[in-house]
């Protein structure tokens, strides 16, 4: 039985779904996987793809104790990525 070719996620990193992403989600993921690689497993990291921040607003998240909620554009800019990398879809 063939399995999905996609690399498995880390359980404590959640993406919003990216229906309106400011930046290409695949590119954002490469940065997220680096920045948050040492985050404690009991901390939920929410990656919002745009200013609407749907994931942070989600009712399902409200009961979670330890959350880091970020906007994709902020973490990419803080990572110091160049304009070329930012616009280069993967």
């Amino acid at each position: 039985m063939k399995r999905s070719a996609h690399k498995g996620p880390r359980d404590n990193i959640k993406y919003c779904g990216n229906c309106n992403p400011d930046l290409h989600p695949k590119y954002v993921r490469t940065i997220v996987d680096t920045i948050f690689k040492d985050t404690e497993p009991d901390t939920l990291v929410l990656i919002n793809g745009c200013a609407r921040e749907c994931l942070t607003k989600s009712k399902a998240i409200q009961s979670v104790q330890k959350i880091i909620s970020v906007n994709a554009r902020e973490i990419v800019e803080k990572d110091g990525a160049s304009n070329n990398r930012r616009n280069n879809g993967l």
Partner: protein
Amino acid sequence: MPLKTKEEYIQSLRNMKKRIFIFGEEIENYVDHPIIRPSINACAMTYDLAQQPEYEELLTTQSSLTGKKINRFTHLHQSTEDLVKKVKMQRLLGQKTGCCFQRCVGFDGLNAVDSVTFEMDRDLGTEYHKRFRAYLTYVQENDLVVDGAMTDPKGNRRLAPSQQADPDMFVRIIERREDGIIVRGSKVHQTGAVNSHEVLVMPTQTMREEDNDYAVCFAVPADAQGILYVYGRQSCDTRKMEEAEVDVGNKMFGGQEAVIIFNDVFIPNERVFMCGEYQYSGALVERFAGYHRQSYGGCKSGVGDVLIGAAQAIAKIQGLDGVSHIKEKLVEMIHLNETIYSCGIACSAEGKPTASGTYLIDLMLANICKLNVTRNPYEISRLAQDIAGGILVTLPSEKDFANPEIGPLLKKYLRGASQYTTEDRCRIQRLIENLTLGTGAVGYLTESMHGAGSPQAQKIMIGRLANLNYKEQIAKELAGIKDRD
């Protein structure tokens, strides 16, 4: 875990032996047929994105029936958040495929049947809801694609089903047995039927007592004995058989519609969810139509994103980016596109639970959504064609560009801005052509017009739901008119 991969989905279609006709011939291998395969790829995207962490929040959820992680297309909406996520998911899929990805009709049918069967059992003491939930658990556990089959051929539109010269113009029960029913008829405009595992049949209109044999709802495996499929033609469809890379416009993905014929098909009782209870047919039609009208706010805005992006790209390639009238047209395209998305979000946010617990969208706003969808894609397409220019419909074929004598000349004379290749220009022009005139236009334009009901159907609902008496009253109050009634 129930989630299938896209490879498993495609293999599951190979394992189903359906009787499919295209261009007058029955075909053996439909999965690899060049006209059909792009539509399978589009449906497969609903599986593929569910496996990707960047998108799984929209494509997956926890089942309200089993607690397991399932594909959202098999989910019963449990909240307004679910309804909103549905629209966002559909927008995402429209962006990724640039076409109709086909899995929504069944999704909407499942949700409508759930609430109506609950109310039937509550009022009539039947067992339809229990059967339906067992069936839906099976769909979820196996991550199946369900074709939502509503539209009958209808024959003479002025006559009720039982008055038609040919009684088979609407799907009907021709025999009731102890272990099930036998049905006969046809459903048309069946989006994704050939790519489905199951067919969920619903009545196409409110039935009266004399039409009770037509008040039937059931689920049947897509390869059941007696079912035939006839593939619908689309504008520019045979380009997919030319082994062309560029001329198709959107080579990987496409939509699909078929005629389904039910030749005396047996349905066992456990798959029958309405069998003559005509009083509930109207509610089923109304709710299915409501959910499906909501869907268009998502899927068509996603495809609209692709067309807007293509218009922006061709403007750059042709050296027109930054020109004020081009920018103005792009903004107008965005305005129209976000309008239909806004309507999809609005009817979702204003949803509420039915008696079964399954959430239903706001019917008025869902109909407003769809009525806007019957108009806005046409104007967005017009503006895209305006920006693209006349070369959109006069471009030589890909084979001409490959000819050793004329190819280099075409590449020289049809180049746009020097930092882009002529091939880039051709590719984007063909994509715009696909979406506004070709196979993609079937889904983006005509389906926007007639899918989930033609404009008049939405106007009837809007007129019915508008509460005009109250609006008249508030106007009279402000005008100082005392009520003499």
